[in-house]
């Protein structure tokens, strides 16, 4: 027996309004999670990029410091080579000056150039020639000068002139850097 003229409709727990709410919040939550996912992915990419940049920076730092060492060493090599070349040139000038110092009338038989001195062996016609023409310029260069004479059979004199300097910057003093 029926008590109503209409047919009963099915009742569901999920109404139209509820569906609308679910769709709305579903879309919202989906968008929120998408943004979160995007930010997380970007954050990961940024941290990887930072690591790469920092590692490259360290590599460049090492490379720069290594190149700086190389530059310093080349500059040192250049400086040492320059010093040595200058020393050789000074030595050449010193020897040239020494031979220019010897007057025509005196003949040298031997010369010893020492670190801080000069020893000359030779023959002179007279003591005066030696004293005026050789000893005088030698005295102006060296601080200590000793001379000894031995007579030759022909009347000339064989001499030995020993000269020393005490100051270090003399032309016959070898640079002391070798000893350091």
């Amino acid at each position, binding site marked *: 027996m029926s008590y109503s003229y209409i047919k009963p409709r099915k009742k569901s*727990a999920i*109404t139209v*309004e*509820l569906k609308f*709410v*679910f769709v709305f*919040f579903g879309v*919202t*939550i989906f968008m*929120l999670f998408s*943004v*979160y996912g995007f*930010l*997380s992915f*970007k*954050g990961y990419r*940024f*941290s990887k*990029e*930072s690591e790469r*940049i920092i590692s*490259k*920076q360290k590599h*460049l*730092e090492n*490379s*720069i410091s290594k*190149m*700086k*060492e*190389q*530059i310093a*060493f*080349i500059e*040192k*090599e*250049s400086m*040492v*080579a320059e010093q*040595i*070349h200058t020393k*050789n*040139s000074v*030595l*050449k000038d010193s*020897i*040239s000056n020494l*031979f220019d110092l010897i007057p025509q009338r005196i003949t*040298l*038989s*031997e*010369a*010893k*150039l*020492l*670190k801080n001195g000069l020893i000359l062996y030779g023959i002179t016609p007279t003591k005066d020639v030696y004293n005026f023409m050789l000893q005088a310029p030698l005295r102006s260069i060296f601080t200590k000068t000793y001379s000894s004479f031995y007579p030759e059979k022909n009347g000339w004199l064989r001499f030995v002139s020993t000269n020393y300097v005490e100051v270090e910057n003399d032309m016959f003093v*070898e640079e002391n*850097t*070798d000893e*350091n």
Partner: protein
Amino acid sequence: MKIKISRPNIFLIAISTFLLIFVVLFSFLVLIPKGKEYRVQRLDVKKLNSELRQYQDYNDEILSKLKELQKKNRHTITAFENIFNPDRFEKQNKKYFLSLKLSKIQRTKKYEESFDTYEVNTTSKISSPESFYNFLDSINKSDWIISVNFPIHFKRDKDVISSSFTMKVYVVSKDTKKIK
């Protein structure tokens, strides 16, 4: 007046409120901090990239300076790395001497920590001091870094001059080569 709210509506309001609270909390507690973090990371990466560019520029600058120095001092660098070869030295310099003999190549103390030095005793015969001056000029252009040292001994032997002197050859020490 009594407001009657049906049970489905109460359910709807409860669900909506819960989802709204979730969205708000998620946004403020997770998404916004994440966004801030993203912005900070983006700025950091930008800053790091700019620093990297500066490093790269500086590296390029140092590299070009190094290349230029290497080019300018190529002879010196090679000369310091060459191992002294007495036969080659004699061959290269015999034109300045009537005879040239090298002996006693011995290692001496280090020079400036980076260089090894070898001492070479030399005996020779020259026709005039000019030859010796030319020799001193030529060793500054030779394949090795060489300095002529005291004592230098010249002795007249009929028409020729016998000379003996020591030379110091400078080479880059093995320890320094390892560092390079």
